[in-house]
């Protein structure tokens, strides 16, 4: 493919430019994949070097350090305490005590059970005297997996802290040797609101994210490699255990007999749902975007009165929780709902329109309803941006005789697209996972008979995310299959983001806006 120089590129028309960008992206894919492997190799190499360097440093610290430093290898924070850094020393020591205590009391058990996910399931016993059955519960696979993961996180944190402890002792020793004064606890506290202020600010949010986002995601990924479902819940019914890649094989196999519901393989079902999910995300994002912009422009137009009233009316949809408004809208469009009733009483139709019964009708109706929900948000967002567009641009365009459409396509739209590019991407991906709208409006209906199987009913308006939910709520509660779907959703979203990031370079330049 021909490569253009910067000058040649600038001469191209808009369409050609975009085409060129897409082409160069596609052509670069093999190279990029190769690059990925190279990067991966480099990463591994760097990691090895890092570990080696760290090990050498640790050893040399031990060999050359004084007794205080040496003892700190065993008793964390000892050196700090001995050198008068009471606060740091106590924190290190406390952490070590907590860690050892935890490992002895619980962590060791969870870790040892992790490879098997439990050995003894529940057993039912019969009490002859009382003529009653009772249950003796034993190992809990769920907890083993959960706390096993947590313990591993904890061990990583401990190793890191231990390393920091060693490094700090080394530093402190050097500082004392060179005759300078060590930082006191007071200095430490002051640095927390000054040069280390970012660490203070991030501590709480990041802890929350680690415990309540990262850990569950790790757990979710691991579930995809187990047989965790309703009949193997790990405690009350049966233990669950590792099954390797079986679940991926079930989900990604195109062969009907080895994975799927008997009529259509899961892979085909996944493909069907994915294509609708992408279609939905595309329409949901762009219809809202353009219509929202249009409404905002209409309200902002010079000479339009009662601007605040119009906005408030629209904003009501944001203020009222969706579980109320969407459920009502869903009922409105029912076969015997008020929309059909109104149209029939006006004599415009003789037969109820199949808003939720026909696949195409249902898909269009959800997109239209989504416009109803989305326009207010977009209206609010674009209102501000439209005001930010320098008015002299329009002024000069008007002098040049540009009509309204030309002003829009030459000034407003490019400006908007430039400013809201990243927003469009995030709203595309979040629309892919727009659970509420689909679940509350249609619940996936109308049913797609071929795709429905033992893993739950699949409908023509089901998105991957609602399918995933249905799998967990289905008769067999196949969490493992839902987890596989979850991972695949991630892969798809990540791929799309990657492509968009590469095609639209402006998104990457964060500092441009400052």
């Amino acid at each position: 493919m021909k490569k253009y120089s910067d000058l040649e590129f600038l001469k191209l028309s808009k369409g050609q430019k975009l085409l060129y960008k897409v082409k160069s992206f596609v052509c670069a894919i093999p190279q990029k994949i190769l690059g990925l492997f190279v990067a991966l190799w480099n990463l591994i190499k760097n990691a090895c070097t890092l570990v080696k360097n760290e090990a050498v440093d640790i050893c040399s610290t031990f060999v050359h350090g004084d007794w205080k430093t040496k003892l700190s290898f065993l008793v964390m924070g000892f050196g700090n305490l001995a050198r008068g850094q009471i606060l740091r020393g106590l924190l290190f020591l406390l952490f070590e005590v907590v860690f050892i205590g935890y490992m002895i009391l619980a962590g060791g058990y969870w870790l040892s059970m992790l490879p098997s996910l439990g050995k003894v399931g529940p057993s039912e016993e019969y009490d002859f005297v009382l003529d009653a059955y009772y249950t003796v519960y034993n190992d809990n696979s769920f907890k083993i997996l959960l706390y096993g993961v947590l313990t591993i996180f904890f061990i990583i944190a401990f190793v890191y802290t231990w390393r920091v402890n060693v490094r700090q002792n080394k530093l402190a020793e050097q500082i004392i040797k060179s005759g300078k004064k060590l930082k006191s606890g007071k200095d430490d506290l002051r640095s927390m609101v000054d040069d280390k202020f970012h660490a203070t600010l991030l501590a709480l949010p990041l802890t929350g994210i680690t415990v309540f986002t990262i850990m569950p995601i790790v757990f979710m990924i691991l579930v995809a490699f187990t047989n965790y479902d309703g009949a193997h819940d790990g405690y009350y019914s049966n233990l669950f255990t590792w099954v390797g890649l079986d679940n991926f094989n079930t989900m990604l196999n195109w062969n009907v007999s080895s994975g799927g519901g008997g009529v259509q393989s899961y892979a085909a079902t996944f493909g069907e749902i994915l294509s609708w999910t992408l279609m939905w995300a595309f329409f949901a994002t762009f219809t809202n975007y353009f219509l929202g912009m249009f409404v905002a422009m209409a309200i902002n137009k010079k000479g339009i009165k009662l601007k605040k009233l119009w906005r408030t009316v629209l904003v009501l949809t944001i203020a009222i929780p969706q579980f109320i408004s969407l459920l009502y809208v869903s009922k409105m469009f029912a076969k015997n709902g008020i929309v059909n009733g109104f149209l029939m009483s006006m004599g415009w139709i003789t037969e109820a329109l199949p808003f939720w019964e026909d696949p195409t009708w249902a898909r269009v109706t959800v997109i239209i309803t989504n416009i109803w929900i989305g326009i207010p948000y977009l209206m609010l967002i674009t209102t501000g941006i439209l005001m930010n567009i320098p008015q002299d641009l329009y002024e000069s365009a008007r002098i040049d005789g540009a009509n309204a459409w030309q002003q829009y396509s030459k000034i407003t739209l490019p400006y908007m697209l430039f400013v809201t590019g990243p927003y469009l991407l995030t709203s595309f991906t979040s629309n892919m996972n727009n659970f509420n709208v689909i679940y509350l409006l249609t619940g996936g209906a109308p049913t797609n008979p071929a795709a429905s199987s033992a893993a739950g009913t699949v409908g023509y308006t089901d998105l991957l995310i609602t399918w995933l939910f249905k799998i967990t709520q289905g008769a067999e509660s196949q969490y493992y299959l839902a987890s596989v779907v979850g991972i695949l959703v991630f892969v798809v979203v990540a791929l799309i983001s990657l492509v968009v990031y590469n095609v639209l370079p402006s998104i990457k330049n964060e500092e441009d806006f400052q």
Partner: protein
Amino acid sequence: MKKFLALMLAAIMAFSMVATAGAASLAGTYDITVWVAELAVDLTKAQIEKFNQTNELGIVFNATVEAVSEADAATQMITDVEAGGDLYCFASDQFARLVQAGALAKLGVKAAETVAAEHNADAAAATMSGDTMYAYPLTADNGYFMYYDKSVIPEEHVDSLEAIIADCEAAQKYFAYEMQTSAWYLAGAFFGTGCVSEWTTDDEGNFISVRDTFNSPEGLIAAKGIEKLVKSPMHLSSSSGSEFASGAAVVVTGTWDYETIKAILGDNLGVADLPSYEVDGKSYHLGSFRGYKMMGVKPQVDAVKAAAVHQLAQYLTGEECQMERFEALSWGPSNVKAAENEAVLAHPGLAALKAQHPYSVPQGQIHGSWWDIAKVIGDDIKLATDEAGLQAALDNYYAKIDALFQLDTSALLFVGAWNGWNNADDADTYYFKGSTLTLDVPESDYMGGRIVNPGSWGTDKGFAQVVSGAEYIKDLGADNPDNNIVFAEAGNYTVTINSNEITIVKN
């Protein structure tokens, strides 16, 4: 630290458990949670209060009664058994799921005998998996029939589906019959033409066989009947009584909607058994499910508490409480004595159920996934354009059942070891699809085998379970420690397994 405290607490609890379990007396105060439908909350509270005062065992329940609908209860229990209600109500379609999830405690011997003696036989059978009883029947009215608006449907038309559809279309009124979103309503049509879907479970709730004849000439007739309905522009796939207030003239639903519909239609309310339809000149009556609601006990770790909670469950599902429920909520009793009460017999909804009775089948254990698989038949039929399309809908259904059963109970197989037990290999393994199997037994020195769940050799079935056809097999006595079925001579045999009973027929 938290962990440590929790461990300590657990140890103390375990100790106190051991201490109390020694005594056989049930007297004491127990904290329990009871899940019932919202409508029944107040009544249940009063009933538990009464139990506390009247029982002779000294049991006092400190009960929290929560409103959890029968449909939600099963899903919630399966998500987390521990947090679920100690006593909870559910409809019979959830039974198998709950047993599999370990969410139901078995009934004691005496309790099971009482249930079998006092309740309607079908209802009692619905609470059993294999030979084990897992729940207490609560109602026997979980079936459906037809409500109609007399001002739209003349009384002489209520027997004919075609006439009703024509009336609805003429009046621009809806015919609400949940044919597209619920297997429970849809499957009735198939039962009406003589199709069956019979599933058998073992004592632990595992499905061991299925006999399903939806994909048959009779099934095709049912499909044609359904087609008439779902292709009508006035068909509404709903089973909500309040549809009468939004343009429906007919709603197929159950007794629970009686009061609502009565309030909407007033004097125009009509009830009847389901209508018949005509295919190829022959008339077929629409069938239905005869379902039950039950009350289950969550498995307890403490035998004493378990025994006490079972006492309460027995009381709450007994004659007295069922009568109270009928009086307050019109729930049809499963208790035989209560069901014979005059007031019960006079209730119009229950009377219509009774009229539908001959065309209904009792709802036994059905695989949870079947509900998802069967309900799409309705949509498939609606999409079909000709008879081949209808047949394709049934073929699809069959393929899915087949895939499901293979998935779930590839477990169930006949392992034959024609050349000696140690030579068993895959070639000698026969998979059960359905409950019958045709075996080709070759001439060899050890023509034996048995029905096993791989990985659980303890639960397999063999010689000891053969109830008919013993003449074809050898009784090896003490020489048969493995419970093997050893054929006396080579040939072609049909082996049928029905829960615990094996029948052998020579072909």
